[in-house]
């Protein structure tokens, strides 16, 4: 695409966004309720929120680069980047956030049949169905491949029994994409299948898990004789691990996709105070802040470089594990630093001054970053084995 065409696209996009993005959707996301997750039971916060979703979904711009055929935006990478930039320019919120977009979609597009894509993708694009991910089990965390949830072949359907854990928003989701065991347990990776089913199916129940952060974004999810049509299998029988790995790599690479986080300078200046040289009063904290911000800059640039290399045709591969490791550890450090900048004020748990403990709860929330989606230890294992090629014991 020529620069001219791209500039024209930018102009049109700017104009369209100006005309179609409601004013109230141009304010930063402040809390959980501001996020539009979509789904059968989603309560829109406002008419504006619904209008913004519908307008964007109509153009497929909730999923800008997905094929037009299934309702996506059909944009090139360059165009999608322009759209993102122009949305950022007016402070437009994402119209829709969902695991359908960030996780299942890419797998459906790569491994799904035409029928499966036709059935599921448009509903994801329009925010009609909210998905959740059924991977981890109580005894299969880092060692995901040892999962035990069984799907027995009953002719026209599978009969599913077992338990998942850490299922994000399972209590709010309409459908689940799920790893189940359809083959023998050893060798572990080859007996796993990737299957989709409705959470309203008979035999599915969920129980939220209360976290140390006070939030309950995760559930325990139980399957008790759940019948799932065979057509709901994604990809080949017993080849689900390939899809899961593809998605995990994808997910890990996205972790840092939020770009450079907001600088902590304003908070630091306000909470710590500055001296006559316009430097933070607390010099040791100032040095820690500078070191952290430099690390953050280096990481954001690494995400950018990985993206640019991918565009240039390089395969990201195990590099995504490094990004996942580094980005999540950095985010944990960032929140420890925020605690230090705000001092004891950061520890308020309830009350208006702290917006009901937003800082403290976010801080605790980050502790899961290096556990979920593959622990830091597993990421380091992957880097040492697949990139550095260090031998197994």
């Amino acid at each position, binding site marked *: 695409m020529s620069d001219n065409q791209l500039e024209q696209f930018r102009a049109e996009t700017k104009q369209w966004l100006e005309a179609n993005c409601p004013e109230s959707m141009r304010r930063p996301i402040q809390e959980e309720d501001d996020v539009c997750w979509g789904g059968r039971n989603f309560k829109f916060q406002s008419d504006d929120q619904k209008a913004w979703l519908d307008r964007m979904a109509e153009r497929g711009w909730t999923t800008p680069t997905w094929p037009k055929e299934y309702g996506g935006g059909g944009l090139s990478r360059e165009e999608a980047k322009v759209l993102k930039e122009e949305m950022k320019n007016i402070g437009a919120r994402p119209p829709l956030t969902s695991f359908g977009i960030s996780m299942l979609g890419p797998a459906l597009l790569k491994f799904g049949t035409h029928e499966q894509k036709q059935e599921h993708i448009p509903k994801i694009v329009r925010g009609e169905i909210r998905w959740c991910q059924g991977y*981890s089990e109580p*005894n299969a*965390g*880092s*060692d995901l491949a*040892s999962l035990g949830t069984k799907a027995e072949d009953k002719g026209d359907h599978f009969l599913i029994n077992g338990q998942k*854990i*850490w299922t994000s928003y399972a209590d709010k989701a309409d459908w689940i994409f799920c790893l189940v065991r359809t083959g023998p347990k050893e060798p572990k990776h080859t007996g796993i299948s990737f299957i989709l089913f409705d959470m309203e199916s008979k035999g599915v129940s969920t129980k939220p*898990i*209360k*976290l*140390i*952060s*006070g939030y309950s974004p995760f559930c325990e999810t139980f399957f008790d004789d759940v019948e799932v049509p065979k057509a709901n299998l994604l990809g080949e029988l017993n080849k689900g691990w390939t899809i899961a790995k593809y998605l995990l790599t994808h997910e890990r690479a996205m972790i840092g996709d939020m770009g450079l986080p907001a600088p902590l300078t304003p908070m630091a200046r306000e*909470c*710590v105070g500055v001296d006559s040289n316009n430097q933070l009063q*607390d*010099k*040791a*904290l100032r040095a*820690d802040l500078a070191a952290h911000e430099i690390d953050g800059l280096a990481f954001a640039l690494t995400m950018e470089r990985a993206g640019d290399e991918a565009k240039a045709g390089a395969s990201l591969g195990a590099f995504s594990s490094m990004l996942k490791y580094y980005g999540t550890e950095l985010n*944990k450090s960032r929140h*420890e630093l925020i*605690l*230090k900048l*705000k*001092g*004891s*004020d*950061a*520890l*308020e*748990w*309830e*009350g208006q001054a702290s917006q009901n*403990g937003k800082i*403290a709860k976010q801080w*605790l929330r980050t*502790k*899961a970053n*290096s*556990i*979920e989606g593959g*622990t*830091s*230890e597993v990421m*380091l294992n992957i880097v040492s084995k697949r990139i550095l090629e260090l031998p197994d014991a």
Partner: protein
Amino acid sequence: MALVLTEEQTLLKDSASGFFAERSPISSLRDLRDSYDSQGYKSDLWQEMAEMGFTSLLLSEDEGGTGFGFVGAGIVAEEMAKTLAPSPFIASSIVATSLLKATKNAHLSDVASGQKIATLAVDETGHHSPYTPKTTSDSDGKVSGNKTFVPEGKAADFVIVTADRPGGFALYLVEKDATGFSAEQTIMADSRGWAKLSFDNTPATLLASGDAAKAILANALSKANIILSAELLGLSQAAFDMTVNYLKERKQFGQIIGTFQSLQHRAAHMFSEIETTRSIVLAALQAADSKDVDDQRLAIMASAAKARASKMAELVSNEAIQMHGGIGMTDEYDIGFFIKRARAVQNLYGGYHYHLDRFASLNGY
């Protein structure tokens, strides 16, 4: 003095350990939290602690105390921290007691017996800056201003408060029913009895003023930070022990995860950090009891102990969650209570960076 516990101190440790394990397991803190208790501790536990002599450790037997001094108080703080037992021990029996003793105040005996609860209100922002209060008093001793992050501020029968008085810095004592005084409970991450206090022309008793007041406060804060270091040591030790036990049980990839060398090395490193902190805490406790240690040396030991205990507790509490994996993130499991309490104690009376700066200044650089 040898850096080991005496026989008597070892007995105190054993009895404190058994007492808190039995009378105030972690579930006790959980109950208080879930019932939104505004006092922040259980009165019957406090009563029993008083009967055990834990409230009067800093008073000699002549003064009606148990005479265990700061080493004894550190032992109790450490054992108490292992089960996160909530009580006004540090606020009342250590900090307020030190201040009342130094100012020869008549309330001392009621506080030492545990019948009355007292606390110090010193912070006014999220950061500790004890000698330059914005809270003021007139020359009649009427105090006006706001304090935050006051431990047991809601439960306290009286509060020792710092203020800027015409002519200089001052320490006052305010009764809880004094006019213009109010205490608002703050629900903090650690589910303990914190409060924000406000004073509006509140009548108060002058305890000390000028440089003498600053010196008394500095001495009490040094001692308080040493006891808080012992608390950080205790809670870190408990979180570490839970973690090592978990490493011996949890299986992944067909192996006990405690067999993974990288976890082993991180655990061994934590052990080193805990043990080296244990030494500096014990030395600081002994310094607090010693007549040969001047205020400057005591302050150096206090800042060294608090800075180190804070850094160690941050490492250990974070590693404890990480090594527990998902289960460590659940509220149902106890480990989360440790990281929450750790950060509160780290911050109280100055955090890591505050004490690093103080240590450097006191050492002349």
